[in-house]
């Protein structure tokens, strides 16, 4: 596997994650179908077993903990479907992962707005 310097707080979804997370991501991919979402909600444990999640993956899902899900190979694009089932939006997820309140996380995003004008002007003052 290619190795790079690490980027703090960032796990690019590469071969190691793809192998490790396959079962979890496959379960999340199934949530495109409404009956699969319902089956998961009706019996979460049975559904995770059917998709062969390992113990760490099951624990991460039970804990609704996104960082744990990433640590066990979850991919953001597929995890979004699971987050949707739990009623979490992208700010909820961002807040959870960064240890901020949702309001603090939104304020953090808002703080970048001060740069809008610079970019509109062609980044001349970069």
């Amino acid at each position: 596997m290619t190795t790079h310097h690490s980027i703090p707080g960032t796990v690019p979804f590469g071969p190691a994650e793809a192998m490790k997370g396959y079962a979890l991501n496959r379960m999340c991919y199934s949530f495109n179908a409404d009956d699969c979402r319902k089956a998961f909600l009706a019996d979460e444990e049975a559904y995770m077993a059917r998709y062969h999640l390992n113990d760490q993956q099951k624990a991460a899902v039970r804990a609704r903990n996104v960082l744990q899900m990433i640590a066990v190979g979850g991919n953001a694009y597929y995890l979004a479907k699971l987050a949707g089932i739990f009623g979490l939006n992208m700010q909820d997820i961002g807040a959870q992962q960064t240890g901020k309140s949702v309001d603090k996380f939104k304020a953090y995003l808002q703080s970048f707005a001060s740069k809008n004008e610079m970019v509109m002007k062609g980044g001349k003052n970069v």
Partner: protein
Amino acid sequence: MSKILGSVSTSHIPSIGKAIALKLQQDAYWKPFFDGFHKVHSWIAEQKPDVVVVVYNDHGLNFFLDKMPTFAIGAADSYATADEGWGIATIAPVAGDPKLSWAIIESVVEDEFDVVTCQEMLIDHAVTIPLQLLWPDQVPPPVKIVPVCINTVQHPLPTAKRCLDFGKAIGRAINAYGSNQKVMVLSTGGLSHQLDGERAGFINAEFDAECLQALINTPEDLTRYSIHQLVELSGTQGVEVLNWIVGRGILGARAEELHRNYHIPISNTASAIQVLQAV
């Protein structure tokens, strides 16, 4: 001969779909974003494209990790949307242009691009939201589409140079295609954002500014970045800028920037719109 008019590039953030469904265009949060489309609408009204080549990435609707393409091109009569699992509204199927699709596929395979050919293909919010933004009153839009899907999901991703070259190859195919159709490019995704990890919420306006400038007439400048550097500079999902790089390649050597909008934040993303006219 078919003619490439230019390109519209835009973010495809899912919450835009909800804002459209709830008619929040005049809401204070949304107005700076939606207002960015007025000039896009007048340019489209003036240019009257017949076909739109949509360069985007799939978000786990049509492709899964069992068979993950680097580059895929749709070759269907019609493209349906479907439930993505988290409440994004589906829209009526969008018409395809299979003859143009196949002309592009034949040409780029001859040019040594190893594409996946999709005679059935579900399109997700990365196609439907931009189409709704460009033709807000017409669903389905009054154009045919050729979807071009780029892997931004599972590394290894295609390099920025490969993406630019892929776009150039598509551009050559369109220019050689013997129809009178007016072709528009629609590139979707980005700009900087990161949804996952302790760095969630990462945004890099300086790098976005650099990308927007380079995309006008010096896209080669972006090919010096490795994928790892692009992740570092634009975020794990900010690498969707690869779609914009492919789209820029299609336009050809020279372009003129007619319009730009940049607005932080929409959801967790630095939203951006750019209209480039081929010259």
